[in-house]
């Protein structure tokens, strides 16, 4: 948590570091235990307790106190209450900062330890420790002459000062001011995240350069080791709270002098009280920066703030990038096309006739035949037009806001400029989203103001009333409820384009001359991919390594749903509605069937369309672990060269009224010389079987409900 990590290996290494000084480590551990027990007795959220949400500030407090005092019973007695104070401060800071959508970082630690240090000066039962002062004595006491020798060997290494200071600064975070601690932490950091390591080095290097160039007080770095503030801030701003990129790196550089300003300033400010500044500058600069980011109008871009925190700069980067590729224009409320069958976009967004300026984000739909004609016979009568009189349906559920009816339909070629929108229905989907259907046929509207309408229910028929020379359906989304309101750029959630072979579009805008249709959902696919929470699925494979097991569908506090493999505890997060099933991320070990299923069913449209091909992109970290992925991690903020690919094709086995038998053939192409994996999922109201072909190896899995 101090390093923004939930990585276990890293955590273990950090624990080892804190125990370099056994009593300091014990004090840290003691504080954590006390705080977590208190938190539990207090009735705080268990998941937060287990995630170390309340513990990490206490750890720092414990370490800070442990290094300053001898481990007498009195010390532990006092430490208990200091820990309580830490917990209270933690809750207060959580309450305050969360209102602004900000983290509380190590503010509780700072507040508590300052009070504790000041107060302990008057507690005579406490014996000040000397480990910070007479280090060699302590070392000799614990490890004999060997340890002292070893320590001095480290100290005498002819490394450049900057590198030594870097390691010492890392160690200083855990009150361990020596090289070895720093090196272990650096190693842990590298294991946890290549980007974080890179940022720590870069952040420190900029600081060193800045201090040298400006002639600042070098002692802040090479004596007080206060440079860790720069390192932590670099990780926070460069890749943790902000998605790592050129931009985040530029901000790391720009904030370096600011941190140094805070360091020098706060040292002097706290000097009268003889208090160390600890991580105050880091806290200040990160909170200031994150808060300031919220005022941007150009949200989410350069640098982009992390919305879903995955506790790893790599994941934050890869998943946010992947999300941008996979789900651009994702909205909260899905809008479908307001008609049955295939219609053609006659005028799209920014059209040449009337979709201009404030009203540019609208569509006109007509029906064309194979010869691309809009009408049968001569086209001189309204009824000659294919679209005339066809049902118009609600694009999403909502309340009928306005109904205009009774305006005559025009003869082809004529138009009505007096009531230019013609017969119109406006539906309120929520307080900021309305859809408008215009030029409807006179007396065809079957809904009335105020009534609730379900998605897909008929509201009226396509007509030719208003400013419409030829029958067509005008459809627009708007954020205000009036006839004539400006349009809102809002995507259609899922649809098929039929100009050639059907192409699936998600959250896109139908373009001019596209033949579009809603996706007819397939009941068999829908039932098979209906992973409700609590649902469990037993599998058996013919592979020794994958074996047998069970999947269970669960959801977390934020209602993110995932499939968990009960044996390995691996999780595959997914999002599903009645049109599309897609996995969003995978967590845990890859030696399980779930991993392959995650790759195989990365994106599955739930409407069957023979021959439909679906493409998608995986985040780079699904690439097999190895030097290439390691290299990718290092350069990820600047360039992504691993682009694993997903492809899916449907074949029908046969149509059946009790459910279609459908075969899903998908492929995972890691690229860069790695072998493509082929998958085959057979579906008949549930997932019948799943096979994996990797190189010459074929694995088949069968499922039971």
């Amino acid at each position, binding site marked *: 948590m101090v390093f923004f990590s939930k990585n276990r290996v890293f955590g273990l290494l950090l624990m080892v570091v804190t125990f370099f000084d056994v009593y300091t480590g014990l004090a840290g551990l003691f504080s954590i235990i006390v705080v977590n027990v208190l938190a539990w007795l207090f009735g705080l959220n268990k998941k937060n307790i287990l995630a170390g949400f309340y513990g990490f500030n206490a750890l720092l407090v414990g370490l800070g106190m442990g290094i300053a005092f001898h481990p007498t019973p009195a010390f532990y007695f006092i430490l208990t209450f200091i820990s309580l104070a830490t917990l209270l401060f933690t809750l207060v800071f959580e309450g305050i900062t969360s209102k602004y959508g900000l983290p509380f970082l190590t503010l509780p630690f700072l507040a508590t330890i300052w009070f504790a240090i000041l107060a302990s000066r008057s507690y005579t039962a406490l014996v000040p420790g000397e480990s910070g002062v007479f280090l060699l004595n302590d070392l000799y006491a614990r490890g004999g002459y060997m340890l002292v020798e070893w320590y001095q060997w480290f100290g005498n290494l002819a490394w450049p000062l900057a590198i030594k200071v870097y390691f010492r600064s890392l160690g200083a975070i855990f009150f361990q001011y020596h090289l070895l601690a720093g090196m272990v932490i650096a190693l842990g950091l590298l294991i946890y995240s290549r980007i974080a390591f890179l940022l720590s080095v870069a952040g420190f290097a900029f600081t060193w350069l800045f201090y040298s160039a400006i002639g600042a007080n070098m002692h802040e770095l090479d004596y007080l080791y206060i440079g860790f503030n720069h390192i932590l801030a670099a990780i926070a701003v460069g890749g943790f709270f902000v998605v790592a990129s050129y931009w985040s790196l530029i901000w790391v550089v720009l904030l370096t002098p600011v941190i140094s300003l805070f360091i020098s300033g706060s040292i002097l400010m706290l000097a009268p009280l003889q208090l160390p500044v600890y991580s105050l500058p880091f806290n200040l600069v990160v909170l200031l920066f994150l808060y300031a980011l919220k005022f941007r109008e150009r949200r989410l871009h350069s640098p982009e703030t992390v919305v879903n925190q995955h506790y790893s700069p790599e994941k934050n980067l890869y998943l946010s990038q992947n999300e941008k590729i996979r789900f651009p224009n994702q909205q909260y409320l899905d809008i479908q096309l307001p*008609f049955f069958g295939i219609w053609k976009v006659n005028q799209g967004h920014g059209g040449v006739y009337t979709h201009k300026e404030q009203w540019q984000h609208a569509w006109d739909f007509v029906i064309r035949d194979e010869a691309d004609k809009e009408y049968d016979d001569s086209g001189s009568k309204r009824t000659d037009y294919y679209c005339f009189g066809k049902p118009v349906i609600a694009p999403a559920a909502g309340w009928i806001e306005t109904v205009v009816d009774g305006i005559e339909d025009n003869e082809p070629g004529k138009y009505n400029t007096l009531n230019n929108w013609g017969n119109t229905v406006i539906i309120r989907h929520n307080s900021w989203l309305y859809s408008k259907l215009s030029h409807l046929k006179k007396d065809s509207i079957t809904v009335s103001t105020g009534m609730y309408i379900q998605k897909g229910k008929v509201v009226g028929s396509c007509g030719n009333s208003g400013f419409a020379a030829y029958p067509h359906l005008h459809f627009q989304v708007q954020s205000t409820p009036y006839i004539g309101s400006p349009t809102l750029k809002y995507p259609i959630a899922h649809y098929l384009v039929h100009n050639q072979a059907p192409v699936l579009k998600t959250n896109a805008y139908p373009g001019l001359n596209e033949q579009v249709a809603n996706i007819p959902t397939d009941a068999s696919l829908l039932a098979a991919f209906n992973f409700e929470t609590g649902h469990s699925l037993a599998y058996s494979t013919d592979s020794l390594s994958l074996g047998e097991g069970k999947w269970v569908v669960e959801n977390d506090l934020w209602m993110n749903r995932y499939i968990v493999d009960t044996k390995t505890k691996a999780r595959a997060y997914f999002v599903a509605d009645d049109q599309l099933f897609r996995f969003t991320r995978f967590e845990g070990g890859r030696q399980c069937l779930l991993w392959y299923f995650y790759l195989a069913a990365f994106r599955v449209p739930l409407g069957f369309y023979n021959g439909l091909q679906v493409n998608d992109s995986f985040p780079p970290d699904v690439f097999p672990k190895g030097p290439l992925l390691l290299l990718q991690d290092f350069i990820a903020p600047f360039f992504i060269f691993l682009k694993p690919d997903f492809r899916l094709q449907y074949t029908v086995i046969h149509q059946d009224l*009790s459910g279609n038998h459908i075969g899903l053939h998908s492929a995972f192409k890691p690229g860069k010389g790695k072998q493509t994996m082929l998958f085959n999922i057979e579906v008949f109201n549930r997932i019948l079987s799943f096979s994996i072909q990797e190189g010459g190896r074929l694995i088949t899995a069968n499922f039971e409900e």
Partner: protein
Amino acid sequence: MEKKPYERPHITRLETSMPGKFGMRSERPPTTHIDGITVDSLVKTYGSPLFVLSENTIRTTYRKALNAFTTRYPKVQFAWSYKTNYLAAVCNVFHQEGAWAEVVSGFEYQKAIENGVDPKNIIFNGPVKTKEELETATRNGSLIHIDHLDELYLLIEVAENSEQKPKVAIRVNMDTGIYPMWDRFGFNYEDGQAWDALNKIMHSGKMELVGLHTHIGTFILSAGAYGVAAAKLAELARLLKQKFNHAIKYIDMGGGFASKNTLKGSYLPGSDTNPSISEFAEAISTALINSHFQPGELPLLILEPGRALIDEAGYILTTVLANKRLASGRRATIIDTGVNLLFTSFWYQHPVTVAQEFSQYREDTTLYGPLCMNIDCIRENINLPLLQLGDKLVIHYTGAYNLTQWMQFIHMRPAVVMIDARGNVHEVRQKENHHHVGSLEKLPEHLQI
């Protein structure tokens, strides 16, 4: 300049008055080509008479009809009515377009299987199904539409001895406000037979009730009747949902949609007055959408149009064999197509056009077929140019029923060709010869001479 063809002398009354309320007499232009192929070359290659089918017309008619429904209703499936025309070539054009098969006998069922239709996509209709046929259909998972209680009991018996549950629907007949009301097929809606049969099916527990079927009649000239029928089936579905919490998978509205043919006794031509497929689609889908079904729960809508999909794609090419004058002074023309090939001429006034250019002069005539039977009359009264021996005529809208109801009576049945979308002509049924006809006959020994 080309030499003008000889036309026999004739006398026409000079009309100088104003045109009648229907304006000038309508004339059909000659049909010299079908889908780009000359009538002359077709007759020269395949003989006369000749059945010609246009694949292009079949496909466009099919797509247009399907679009009329899919732009009004979310889930639509057509099933090709085999009895209308079960030539393998015709069936497979429809199957390629995505149609299922609707059969009414074991023979047609067999044909559908041979055409490569998935048995699960065969609808087995009709008043008679043998036990063996029911067993086969059950085993194959075909959709069995029950016509009467005896069939229901027989099917329960079949189901008891079968591993699979038969997938069934019942055929429902009802008053939709039109005459005649067909009540000989299926169970009646108004007197509760249908609801009773549905209860028997549900309580038997031996069958999977998947749908409801009706077929209100044939060549229906009122689209509104289909709206009434759809609403009544939807009501049955609602009752099933309410009483048994059972959702049916489909509603089959049958067929019976009028083609462009003109019924005998009609005052105006059928192409102008008969409801279009759009009107039928509008009536059916509006009734279903406005019924109790929620948008996501709308059942599959199955339709079994026959005539409306194929009538206009069929032509008969025929040759003038003789001209004669009747005792009444009326003109008569004998052609080589009779009611043996054009069964539908009993109720339609099929449009007949000439296949070559003529002058503007016309004469009322009667078209007789080649049979030595008094009933063999194709058109009692038709206005045609001055026909010569050997002239070719084209009879239109003959695709439905004639290729299944034609008879080998007096004459052999001619060849059938299909012109594909690229203009290639394929012979899809050979001309019969006397070997074909005689091959099944057996002559008892004592009768041999």
